[in-house]
């Protein structure tokens, strides 16, 4: 009878030990699962934060879609897909006449165009735009020339002026001549 009791006690002890081990394993697994879930929550929270910011930004942009579209059109014209020299000359003439100035010279650096064309072959559209050097000369009154320079700075086409020389045309003349070395840009 005692032996039976001892063996029953032993079995119970073994069963409890196994249960304890099982519960320990289950608890550790649960803890690890919770840790994983918490880490996932952090990750999703972070993504959510980014996405919420992105959505807010997009909603704001969507509210001003017309303005954004206008910006895109204006900016696209600043760096066209080809040198478009004729249109550029027309534009410079327009600026000159709008500001009572005479456009007396437009010289394109042809060599520069060819080099740029060759360089651009194989380059992606994302690279820096190609440069087309141009020499310009305007004659007119000083104030008119200043207005013209402002127009060139903020005009339809992107023009970077590298050199500018303003000379008076005579001792008592109000007319001055501006020689400009500039660069215009195009994409392809």
């Amino acid at each position: 009878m005692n032996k039976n009791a001892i063996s029953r006690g032993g079995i119970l002890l073994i069963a409890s030990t196994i249960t304890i081990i099982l519960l320990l394993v289950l608890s550790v697994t649960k803890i690890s699962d919770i840790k994983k879930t918490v880490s996932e929550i952090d990750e999703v929270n972070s993504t959510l934060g980014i996405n919420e910011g992105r959505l807010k930004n997009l909603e704001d942009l969507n509210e001003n879609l017309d303005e954004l579209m206008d910006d895109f059109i204006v900016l696209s014209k600043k760096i066209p897909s080809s040198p478009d020299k004729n249109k550029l000359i027309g534009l410079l003439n327009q600026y000159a006449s709008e500001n009572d100035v005479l456009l007396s010279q437009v010289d394109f650096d042809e060599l520069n165009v060819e080099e740029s064309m060759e360089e651009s072959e194989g380059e992606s559209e994302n690279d820096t735009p190609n440069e087309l050097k141009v020499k310009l000369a305007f004659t007119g009154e000083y104030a008119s020339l200043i207005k013209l320079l402002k127009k060139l700075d903020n005009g339809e086409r992107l023009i970077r002026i590298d050199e500018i020389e303003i000379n008076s045309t005579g001792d008592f003349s109000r007319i001055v001549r501006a020689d400009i070395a500039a660069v215009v840009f195009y994409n392809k």
Partner: protein
Amino acid sequence: MYNVSLLPYEYRILNKQARKKDYILLIAIAIMCLLLLAYFVLSIVSVGKHSELKELKARNSEIEDQIATLVNVEELDNEVKKINDKIKTAMGTTPKWADIITEIGNTVKPTTSIISIKMDYNDETGKCVIEGKASNLDVITEWLNELETVPGIDDITLIISDNSFTIKNYISFELNMNLLPNSEDSQEVADL
């Protein structure tokens, strides 16, 4: 007063061992209960966390769907930014010529005349040379002092190129100065 047991020694040993086993069993059951409780609590926490995660994922998915409907706007915005960056790169830190020339022109004294202005800017360095005539040195000095306040230029040096007084008593001079890079966010889209 003495603890005397009349039971046989073997029986006592067996009894002692059985009691020890009972204690161990009791402790094991207590540990088991604790672990069960811990597991129960952990399970509740786990369910809570899973539910929180599910909720967040659903919310994120909803926002992503909303973003997907506005993807065209985002592409347009990226395109605008890309072109704007290209413009900034192309223009670099080139000065605002009209502003500088206007500022310089505004400081010219009535008895001073400018014959020529030459300006060039390349690779973040630029120079400006102004040739002119003035009635006297005081006028040039006064002008120089005013030029010091003009933004976008510095390091102004004066060269009197011809101080032999002409019939009109004019002095020929040359002003050299450095052009500073345009510190503004160059060629802002705001100019559009």
